[in-house]
């Protein structure tokens, strides 16, 4: 049943409504959330597919699944990453404030609505600049609880990252702080759908539901993810402005010194910089958007010293 979590009047003959679809009822509750950033659309396919699958196979599951396709409906409808008008990053407004401005109020209502769920999956899709392999990102402070859950999600990588104070204003941090286990999925690239990765995550969601006792149908076989921490990740940033011409495929293994791409000057035809890989490993992030500035992130490489299946929780 489609329900409204929050509804507010906009200035001219329109209302803003954040809606969810509640499937089932009673028992354990799983929330699947996406559309916080208006330019991240990979989750739209996932929740569409999940909606259909659960509707078609009611005999195979129990409990409650709440699906939130558009946390930031104005952003999605206008291809805007942040919240239009105030231009705030919605994922820096949590846990929100019931007595604050519109964006803070919406954030507070959403947190209140999800609080107490048995699991929340918050699906992101990088941004328009970077393409990511399917992964779960987990704050090191919550790794002990969340890594075992994340293993079910059928992702290629679990990245356990360092804590940062500024990240305390994310949905995931806010809910985890309220004892509501929340997993952040990152995959694909902004403004696109990657169906294969969406299907991969769907299998993972069913596996997680099975582990929670919510899915009683055939349990999908999930892949064994690489589990890493910041120490194993190398970053490549552009040393100068120009046009990035990649020389490698995203998601492949690269070797130290191998050319990842070059930064070129279209005006003169010069090669401004060649970009060697700083490490052997998996190229799990690769820049998709070709215009670069000094500092623009080009790639992230997961060091080869990370063992498959290593648990750093």
């Amino acid at each position, binding site marked *: 049943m489609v329900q409204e979590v929050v509804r507010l009047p906009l*200035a001219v003959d329109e209302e803003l409504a954040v809606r969810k679809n509640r499937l089932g009822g009673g028992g354990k509750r799983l929330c699947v959330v996406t559309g916080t950033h208006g330019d991240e659309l990979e989750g739209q396919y996932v929740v569409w597919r999940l909606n259909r699958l659960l509707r078609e196979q009611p005999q195979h599951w129990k409990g409650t699944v709440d699906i939130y396709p558009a946390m930031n409906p104005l952003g999605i409808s206008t291809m805007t990453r942040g919240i239009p008008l105030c231009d705030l990053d919605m994922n820096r407004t949590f846990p929100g404030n019931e007595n604050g401005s519109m964006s803070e*109020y919406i954030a507070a209502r959403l947190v209140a609505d999800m609080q107490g769920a048995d699991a929340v999956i918050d699906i992101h899709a990088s941004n328009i600049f970077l393409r990511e392999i399917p992964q779960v990102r987990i704050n090191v402070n919550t790794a002990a609880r969340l890594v075992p859950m994340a293993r079910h999600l059928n992702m290629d990588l679990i990245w356990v990252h360092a804590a940062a*104070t*500024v990240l305390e204003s994310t949905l995931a941090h806010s809910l985890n702080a309220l004892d509501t286990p929340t997993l952040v999925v990152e995959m694909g690239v902004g403004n696109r759908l990657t169906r294969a990765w969406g299907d991969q995550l769907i299998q993972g969601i069913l596996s997680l539901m099975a582990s929670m006792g919510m899915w009683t149908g055939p349990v999908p076989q999930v892949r064994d993810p690489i589990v890493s921490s910041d120490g194993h990740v190398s970053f490549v940033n552009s040393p100068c402005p120009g046009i990035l011409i990649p020389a490698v495929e995203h998601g492949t293994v690269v070797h130290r010194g191998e050319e990842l791409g070059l930064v070129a000057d279209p005006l003169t035809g010069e090669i401004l910089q060649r970009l060697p890989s700083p490490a052997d490993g998996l190229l799990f992030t690769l820049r998709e958007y070709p215009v670069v*500035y000094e500092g623009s992130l080009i790639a992230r490489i997961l060091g080869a010293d990370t063992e498959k299946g290593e648990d750093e929780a």
Partner: protein
Amino acid sequence: MKEEILFTIDAPYRPALPVRGWRFGSPEGRDLAVMGALRGNEIQQMYVCGRLIQALQTAESEGALSPDCGILVVPCANQFSMNVGRRFWAADNTDINRMFPGYDQGETTQRIAARLFGALQGYRWGVHLTSFYLPGDHLPHVRMMDTGYQQVEEAAAFGLPYILVRSPQAYDTTTLNYNWQIWNTQAFSLYSTSTECADDEAARLAVEAILRFLAVKGLLQRPYFPAAGQPRILRENALHTVLSHAGGLMLNRRAPGDRVEAGELLGEIIDPCTCRSLEQLRADCRGRVFFCHRAQLINGHEVAFRLLPE
């Protein structure tokens, strides 16, 4: 006065963009750093810096500036966005004022923040002329972060009637003000009335406040108008918020600084298509208008006014 290029920002398809600073007094002195526009819409903040540079140049040429003092004024670090009418860094929409203290090996705006912080660090006092995240006008005031390092009484030297102390949220920890404070600079955010328009009177007040600060600190030998009594120091949560419930066209009946009685009409929200009244916004206490929403259109559950109770 010495004008210098603190660093340049290289951009594809555009010439290198200089971030310029104007130094006064001794080149070695590190007394006061003033930062203007970090965002592309902070026209007033840049304008205040420009007028401050003129005033300091005059003071220096007349020998009124202490020769040992060191003052740096940086009017703008984001012409990249300002020149194309964008608020945040126009390439990726990130906010430089959410990147401090910066990271010199990081992404573009992290690097800009790192270079800027390198130039602004080490001063005894720092003033950031900043803008509020909501569209609206403030009563001029000084704002400090409650980091545990702040010395609120120092802010009295500006002579502005209000000093507001804010408990930092997680997202505040990457602002210039917060990081200045953490790195041993007494940091003040100075809120002028407007942001996107140059307001002469508000700029005059802001420049006068900074000059008064310098005079009180003994760096400027010139009599300045005394402050109007002791400033009122208040926590941000002492302000009363008047929220809109309707969405529509907002007509302000009161402006920042106006004294109001409880129940008095502050503004009205009307249906923009029919002009039918949708909501009357009234004061919930006796006090002074501290903030009012400026954009003509307003949504439901927005901060329409903030009142300073008396």
